[in-house]
């Protein structure tokens, strides 16, 4: 069964550093998403991406965040200047149409 792949599985970074979280969605999927889950809290929507542009973003997704699909296969989330409160599990997801997201296994980001 096709999978969404995320790398790295765990990233530790110093506060103020830039991080790039990488995702390879399922090849024939058209819609891409990033979610995050702070430890002990619910999974929260960050951003959706379709047709090479952001289709929706949450209040969390401020100017420090950006997404890109640089080469038609990868889908990246960049955090320009990380803060302690960015520490969370970040999930990438993709879907071909309207139903049935496939999630990646997540990247645990720890900001120290």
């Amino acid at each position: 069964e096709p999978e969404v792949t995320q790398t790295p599985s765990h990233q530790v970074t110093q506060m103020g550093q830039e991080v790039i979280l990488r995702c390879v969605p399922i090849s024939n999927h058209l819609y891409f998403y990033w979610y995050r889950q702070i430890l002990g809290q619910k999974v929260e929507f960050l951003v959706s991406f379709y047709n090479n542009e952001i289709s929706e973003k949450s209040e969390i997704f401020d100017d420090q965040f950006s997404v890109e699909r640089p080469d038609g296969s990868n889908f990246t989330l960049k955090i320009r200047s990380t803060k302690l409160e960015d520490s969370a599990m970040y999930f990438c997801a993709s879907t071909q149409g309207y139903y049935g997201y496939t999630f990646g296994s997540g990247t645990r980001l720890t900001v120290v």
Partner: protein
Amino acid sequence: AQRVTQPEKLLSVFKGAPVELKCNYSYSGSPELFWYVQYSRQRLQLLLRHISRESIKGFTADLNKGETSFHLKKPFAQEEDSAMYYCALSGTGGTSYGKLTFGQGTILTVHP
């Protein structure tokens, strides 16, 4: 605004007992409801979506628009059902297209 409430953070049952994980939602339009499961250290997996009316691993869920609920049920719980369960809602148009709003999650523990 979309909101999903899972009132129970923890639920413990014995093997063979019936189990019901509660989910209530708030949404002004016609939502699409989903249940996702996350087994220990694994990715979020789609368990059920209300439009398909299917039964997966013995679980069922019925959308009750009057009570705005989408409770997950299984008549006889198994130890391998122990996991975190998330109820999620997706809007059906406009800016909420495809975006999932998650509940807090319920940790189900099935004792032998």
